């Protein structure tokens, strides 16, 4: 466990040693603002809640999280530090989990920095802060889901561009499988069980139910099992590369 912490610390600080952290956070906040105020018409709605703000999170994460996760392993492989890291006496799972948690904590920091919008909405009216808190938790869990996918894909290649593009595609599939137009397509011919199975794979379905203000155990289990699944895939991917 202490080794997870060691890896976590190094990784987390590494974000702030380069401009990466600052560029990412600034772009994340600007993009959040644009979506919420211009496209989502936050003011024009005249409602003091943050549902508009949160409804764009899946689509933002879709591009921003793979940009963060693409370097997780691809860069280690390219620069040769992978060899150093994997010959140190640390179990592979601890390295994988430590790196993932650092990236997740970093997205948590970016997400937390959106707090001015929460202040704004409280200033303008009296929103249900319980719902907002639940939505933040849901958004954070969803970011973890995207990250675990990106991390596993990054482990399969030494090329960051490939890692980015493939991650966006896979994340896109996990996002849209709950979008109305996809479900409509299935609903036209497939039995109900299939439609709900497809929908249940989607980040949007689970995230939307959390943003209603209800943190259902099933949604929590969904995100955590998704993360566990992809981190396991991450470990397998590295082991396979080891076997050459």
């Amino acid at each position: 466990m202490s080794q997870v912490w060691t890896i976590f610390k190094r990784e987390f600080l590494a974000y702030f040693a380069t401009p990466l952290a600052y560029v990412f956070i600034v772009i994340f906040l600007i993009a959040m603002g644009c979506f919420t105020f211009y496209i989502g018409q936050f003011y024009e709605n005249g409602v003091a809640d943050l549902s508009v703000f949160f409804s764009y999170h899946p689509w933002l994460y879709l591009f921003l999280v793979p940009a963060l996760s693409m370097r997780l392993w691809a860069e280690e492989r390219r620069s040769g530090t992978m060899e150093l890291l994997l010959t140190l006496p640390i179990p592979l799972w601890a390295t994988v989990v430590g790196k993932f948690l650092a990236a997740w904590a970093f997205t948590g920091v970016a997400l937390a920095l959106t707090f001015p919008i929460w202040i704004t909405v409280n200033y303008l009216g009296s929103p249900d802060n319980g719902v907002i808190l639940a939505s933040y938790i849901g958004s954070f869990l969803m970011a973890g889901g995207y990250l675990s996918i990106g991390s596993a894909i990054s482990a399969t290649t030494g090329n960051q561009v490939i890692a980015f593009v493939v991650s966006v595609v896979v994340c896109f599939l996990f996002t849209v499988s709950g979008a109305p137009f996809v479900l409509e397509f299935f609903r036209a011919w497939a039995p109900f069980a299939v439609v709900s199975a497809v929908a249940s794979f989607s980040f949007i379905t689970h995230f939307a139910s959390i943003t209603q203000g209800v943190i259902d155990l099933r949604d929590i289990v969904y995100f955590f099992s998704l993360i566990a699944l992809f981190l396991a895939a991450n470990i397998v991917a590295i082991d396979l590369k080891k076997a050459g």
Partner: protein
Amino acid sequence: MPAPMIEIAGLTKQFGTIAAVAGIDLKVGKGEVLGFLGPNGAGKSTTMKMVTGYLAPSGGSVRVCGHDMATDAIAAQRVIGYLPEGAPAYGDMTPRHFLAFIAEVRGLRGDTAKKAIADAVAGTELDPVLDQPIETLSKGFKRRVGLAQAIMHDPAVLIMDEPTDGLDPNQKHAVRGLIRKMAPEKAIIVSTHLLEEVEAICTRAVIIDRGRVVADGTPADLLARSRHHNAVTITLPEGQAAGAKAKLRALPGVAGVDETPLPGGLVDLTAFPKSEVVLAEEISRLIAGEHWSLKKLHVESGRLDEVFRAITTHDAARARESRA
């Protein structure tokens, strides 16, 4: 023979259809410094990667201090210090932070960690650059950061892939001194392209070619396989060379004489001995009776590069033939 600390048995590595390592057996004991030699692509780095647990072997086994790398990798890795090829390190960290990170991973805490880092820094003379990002350091300093990382926990087994590559002669000398100093307490494997390094620090030299061990012995053993082993070279003015060459050739112990012209009107004559003959005495007696204006005289111990080339190109040529 001390108990082996590194035991490699029947080690193979297959990359697709290419056998990078085709069956290596080696035992390295405490106090040994094993020089790993071979042409590029011979399988040196691949072997080291398997010994340190970075790559999984296709066949065979690696045991380090009794720990099997396949089943007990963490215990084995704990006693290994490893400098990978190119001395990779996190470029955005400073050596101070990087070494602190490695110390923490190695389970060193508090004063023990501080002392281990201080010793490693002193041993590799990293002091002047401790607070500069590693990516801004010169090649020599980067290499020494990698070295400091490898020796910090005072490992029983030290494996270094080209530790002096990119260092200037002074730094090479310092690193070799460091390795010699640590040698009695450890089992060390060093890969290198520098044959003089083998003579300088290794107690044993292993040449591998196309994934197999083709020579294994002390550097002196290998030198004895050189055509130049115990050969005597004398330097004379050009005018006297022809006569001297004939007289050398006439000596009973001489197998042949080579002539190499030098700048400044001088000529090197190298007399090669018949096997097991020591020529020095015969030749010095010959010289005493002649009126040559001798400039230089020396007995050669052998040339490692010649042995290296004879062993490795021989095999390559044979392989080409068998393929054709």
